[in-house]
């Protein structure tokens, strides 16, 4: 029975036949109570922002409606649209080449292309400046043979676009690869047998089915672009986030900063609505029966070479370049006898706090994902959407909100790991919710009902059936949280226990002077450690491909 509500709401990939759609039954208390608590927790910074901006009085309106604010708004929206569009143009062929063709070394490319996600955006920013900036590597390379004295200006929009795309396109790539692997190849075969060639089939059958993945991946890319500070500040492109930082930095004006942050929240809501619209209304599913076979790989023929050049170019720019720059700085520093002064404590701290965050956030994401998938309705949908707000806010806003609440209302736990982990929860929850949700959608609700009929409570059914079956998505979400926590800086600086150093804070304290060996070594370590969970995500995806 398809309820009216289910038709209006966002389409989801359902397992089984049409009859298994939305439950209208009230969800069990073990699910909705924790879900509500998590959502309230996640919205805490928004309460804070409202509280602060109320204190500002009339001045805030004057400031918000200045032409300049509107300009920044325009720039921010422009950057979000451009980063999303470029990522899409980049990742559609990448995802297709690495999942559906006989591209040479396909598996290797499938592993390498999502890896740039582990690179912190400030490292990406430095890479762009060093490589493409005035007197940068490219210009020096070209100045000899071609006598080129000036490159097109990299600062501003082009640089910010490049740097943010570099570190955020993997969100979209992973979503597309997963979706491409999940599409029943029979659809494409049916299209071929009906007289449409591979390209028409891709355009008319595959692409429409990728829509939910495109929407979900673009959402993360777009919200990430809203939040990024490292790249935009290095490349001098004024976005809302930069403007918010500047409020704190230059005027110590928390009220205005809060007002600007609320505009950012509004912008995030607009993006969330746009995403829901993009998904479209159709509900996509693969029916339960029938053996799914692996798709026939498209034979690239002479297109093999352009495809290889394309993949190499992407990996070279987004992965090899930043990594070699870090290695270069590190070795130059070591060669010139600079003391690296690297202790093991920050390495351990980074891994430890990121692992804790991964576990806690994966658990917190569960009730929300279960609610959204199994008890689809306006309330559960709103709750799921609300978790994305924190992902769009700059780290400093979240950090100061928690400084305020913890110092004044939870004094005993202020400046303990507890509050820091809470901040990570707000910042990174949607990554885990999204991936858990997609895994849950693959679990046939009949299996849970079977467990209930065998005498288990709803709680036991979740524990013994749902969780083990949804484990791949839960683990992937945890891995994603792990590597973004490794990179996080502002909340870590402001909320960690005093003296608690991580790799990210080491990089920060080294770069506040100049970016040389002392920053390169921790940055390299950070990237290497983050690659472990990233490799896990990629391998899991590959495992699912069969």
């Amino acid at each position, binding site marked *: 029975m398809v309820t009216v509500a289910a038709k209006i709401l966002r389409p989801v990939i359902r397992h089984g036949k049409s009859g298994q759609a939305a439950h209208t039954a009230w969800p069990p208390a073990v699910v909705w109570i924790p879900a509500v608590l998590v959502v309230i927790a996640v919205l805490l910074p928004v309460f804070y922002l409202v509280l602060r901006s109320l204190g500002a009085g009339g001045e805030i309106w004057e400031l918000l409606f200045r032409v300049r604010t509107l300009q920044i708004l325009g720039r921010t929206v422009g950057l979000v649209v451009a980063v999303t569009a470029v990522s899409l143009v980049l990742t559609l062929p990448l995802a297709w080449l690495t999942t559906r063709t006989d591209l040479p070394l396909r598996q290797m490319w499938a592993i390498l292309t999502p890896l740039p996600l582990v690179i912190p955006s400030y490292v990406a920013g430095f890479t762009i400046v060093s490589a493409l900036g005035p007197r940068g590597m490219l210009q020096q390379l070209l100045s000899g043979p071609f006598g080129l004295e000036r490159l097109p200006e990299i600062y501003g929009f082009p640089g910010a676009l490049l740097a943010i795309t570099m570190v955020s396109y993997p969100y979209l790539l992973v979503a597309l690869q997963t979706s491409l692997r999940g599409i029943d190849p029979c659809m494409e075969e049916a299209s071929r047998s009906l007289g449409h060639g591979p390209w028409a089939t891709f355009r008319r059958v595959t692409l429409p089915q990728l829509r939910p993945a495109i929407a979900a991946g673009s959402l993360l890319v777009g919200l990430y672009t809203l939040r990024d500070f490292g790249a935009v500040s290095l490349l*001098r492109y004024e976005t809302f986030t930069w403007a918010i930082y500047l409020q704190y930095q230059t005027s110590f004006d928390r009220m205005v900063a809060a007002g600007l942050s609320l505009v950012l929240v509004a912008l995030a809501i607009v993006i969330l609505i746009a995403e829901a619209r993009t998904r479209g209304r159709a509900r996509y599913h693969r029916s339960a029966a029938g053996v799914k076979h692996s798709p026939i790989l498209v034979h690239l023929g002479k297109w093999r070479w352009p495809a290889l050049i394309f993949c190499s170019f992407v990996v070279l720019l987004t992965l090899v370049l930043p990594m070699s720059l870090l290695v270069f700085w590190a070795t130059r520093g070591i060669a010139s006898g600079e003391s690296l002064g690297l202790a093991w404590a920050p390495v351990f701290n980074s891994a*430890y706090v990121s692992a804790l965050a991964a576990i806690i956030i994966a658990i917190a994401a569960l009730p929300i994902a279960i609610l959204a998938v199994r008890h689809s309705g306006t309330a559960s949908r709103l709750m799921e959407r609300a978790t994305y707000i924190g992902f769009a806010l700059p780290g400093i806003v979240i950090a100061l909100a928690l400084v305020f609440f913890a110092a004044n209302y939870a004094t005993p736990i202020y400046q303990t790991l507890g509050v820091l982990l809470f901040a990570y929860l707000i910042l990174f929850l949607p990554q885990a919710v999204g991936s858990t949700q997609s895994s849950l959608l693959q679990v046939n609700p009949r299996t849970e009902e079977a467990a209930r009929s065998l005498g288990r409570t709803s709680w036991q059914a979740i524990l013994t059936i749902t969780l083990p079956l949804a484990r791949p998505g839960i683990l992937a979400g945890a891995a994603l949280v792990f590597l973004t926590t490794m990179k996080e800086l502002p909340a870590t600086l402001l909320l960690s226990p005093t003296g608690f150093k991580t790799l990210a804070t080491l990089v920060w304290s080294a770069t506040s002077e100049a970016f040389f060996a002392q920053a390169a070594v921790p940055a390299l370590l950070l990237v290497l450690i983050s690659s472990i969970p990233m490799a896990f995500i990629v391998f899991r995806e590959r495992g699912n491909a069969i």
Partner: protein
Amino acid sequence: MPKRFLALVGLLVTLAIVGGACAPAAPTPAPSPAPAAPSATTQTLTVYSGRSEALVKPIIDQFSKATGVKVNVRYAGTSEMAATILEEGKNSPADVFFAQDPGGIGAVVNMLAPLPESITSKVLPQFRPADSRWVGISGRARVLAYNTAKLQESDLPDDIWDLTDPKWKGRIGWAPTNASFQAMVTAMRKLWGEDKTRQWLAGIQANSAKVYSNNTAQVDAVSKGEIDVAMPNHYYLYSFLRDKGNSFPVRNYYVRGGGPGAVILVAGAGILETSQNKETAQKFLEFLLSPTGQQYFASQTFEYPVVPGIITHPLLKPLPEIKSPEISMADMADLKGTLSLLRESGIVP
């Protein structure tokens, strides 16, 4: 099996959070958040430092060694630290705020306790505010950094005003979001008045000055020939000289005609009103202002001492030779007016 696994995970998480706050993750134990049982003899001190660890950790370690006081330091940007202190309000665990610039410490001045005469009297009058709620700890001079391959010192103008001359078009850079730059603009407003300052800003914009995010980037850009002249503080040059040697093609020029372009800025420190360790905190400030502390800043961080009788680094132009303008610290803290001017000119958001 999955149930047991989950129970185990839950247990681990609980243990890790509870235990993680002190052992083994944090190399130094968490501070006593709000000193619930205050005692005047407590020998620990919490410092919020907006100055970077590389710059101040050695001298703080010396203080601990000399006095036996255990110092917990939190490092973050000055502005983030100031915002944190404001959010913490009366529950702030901080005893001392050590800020990079007067604006940062000025933002929290209402939360600072007045300092005793014994401390303030050590400091040269131009480096402390009249209300004695904080003191300067070290000074830095505003300079023009120029590319030695393209310019000689004599090519540079007598006054910073002259950078508005069209001959500098496309050759200059600045970092308008940098707090030191903004402090210089504050000085301009006090010395030149609002109108002339506004004209200067417009003139620099008309000369299409390149915008940089910080001073390091400016100096680096001068060395690469991206611009000919930058407007940083004096000491950024010395870290480059240390890293890249004397062939680094940038040198400082102290504006010979004086005026706002030659203003000397300070990093300052104050004690929080809510601190339960005020005596220890005063000891800390006294140490920073002692010959040991001041000599450290003079010779290790290439800064200017703020107390008389300390020898500056041989590479630095001696303080008396700089024609720095007379301007009160209270005037220098007026960041709000500067910001509205900069916003009005469309230079900062």
